[in-house]
């Protein structure tokens, strides 16, 4: 069912954990299947320099979280704000059709984290 890339990220997930203190944090949930994703970012200037994630979810969610943290590092905030589920899906070699929600979860988490950062900056 899963691509080799997904399996690799499932068996050896990258950047699992917490950043404390973090410059941006978010927690999002998919009510349909109960998957939860937390994302932590360290930001320097306008670049993401570190990203960590935690998830309670299926293998697709774990792989999506892991892959996205790799993609996020060195991204500008602007690029991250435009982070799309399709990019994660493609990077993972394609998720099975019923697992699309994992990529959506990641996109939501990234958007929420950027919004969290903006809020902190303005507040």
């Amino acid at each position: 069912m899963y691509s080799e890339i997904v399996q690799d990220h499932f068996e050896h997930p990258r950047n699992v954990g917490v950043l404390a203190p973090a410059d941006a944090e978010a927690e999002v949930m998919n009510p349909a299947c109960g998957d939860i994703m937390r994302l932590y970012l360290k930001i320097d200037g306008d670049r993401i320099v570190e990203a960590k994630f935690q998830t309670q979810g299926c293998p697709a969610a774990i792989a999506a979280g892991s892959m996205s943290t790799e993609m996020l590092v060195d991204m500008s905030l602007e690029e991250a704000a435009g982070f799309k589920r399709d990019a994660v899906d493609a990077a993972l070699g394609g998720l099975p059709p019923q697992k699309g929600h994992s990529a959506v979860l990641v996109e939501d988490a990234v958007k929420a984290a950027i919004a969290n950062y903006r809020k902190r900056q303005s507040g």
Partner: protein
Amino acid sequence: MACYENDFGNPSSVHRYGRRTRVQIDEARDTVAALLGVSAASIFFCSGGTEANNTIIKGLAKICKDRGRHLITSSTEHPAVLDTCAYLARQGFEVTYLPVNEAGVVDLQALEEALTDATALVSIMHANNETGVIQPIADIARLAHQRGALVHTDAVQSFGKIPFNVDELEVDLLSFSGHKLYAPKGIGGWYARTPTALQPLLHGGHQERGLRSGTENVASIVALGKACEVAARDMHAEWERLQHLQQRLEHGILESIPNARIQSAEASRLPSTTNVAFAGVEGETLLMSLDLQGVAISTGSACSSGSLEPSHVLKAMAVPETHLYGALRLSTGRSTTPDDIDYVLECLPDMVKHASMA
């Protein structure tokens, strides 16, 4: 293999090769019937539990539609029953899905209230495939018969695993499946107290006394007969052995993993099934982690179902949301040893810790 090499006659054929395979089928039928404590004439073979459930529920509904268009089943049945009932609902039948309590046992009060004079059939599974919980079929049958309804039980999970006979259950119809007791996949059948009251699903050459046309799967029927013979012989010893393994597994899990919840723990259950849910973890992830370590189990987790819906059985039992997504079904059988149990107990705690976010 002998069936394929030497005994290839079509049992419907009149010649000697046909007669030989006919005898083999009859012998298998005798063995199956003996395991249920009924006459061979009330046993019919087909492709498995799904076909048996379809034949019985649809076949009966069609016969009874003038008498009554009401069917009663439970909310925790196998999809082969639920989907068939949903199909009949679209054909204009009324279906009541009985609730279950937290242990997964059907609410008898609800059954009593649901029964009407228009109820044609009550269909409740003997043992549940996800939790192993055993329903009070005899009590259900008595209530149903009082109101003139016929009673069917899907005994796919219990047949060959726990000692029972049809008289004890007081049912009119019963489904069974071969692969649950080590016969090949693709063979099963049903028991019917009065067979002529069923409209067949398959028309054609009138095999199985007109109730299931189609050339018989001789090799699988013979294998099913053998499987029943072995199951009957070893029933009590296996039951005890599996109960010990179940206790070892469940005790071990509860001791080593916090927030573990075993479904239907206090209810009467099959010895071969453990449904355990962990808080804050997702089932498919545990399944894959175990698979990577050489352990094959099952999960009804939302993420692993095409529809992203969690198990309808666990939902009907009001399993709390904290645990609903992290449920695993561990099944044991003839090849399971205490070492296998210990191996699972060694890997599982770390996997659960690893998969949880805390």
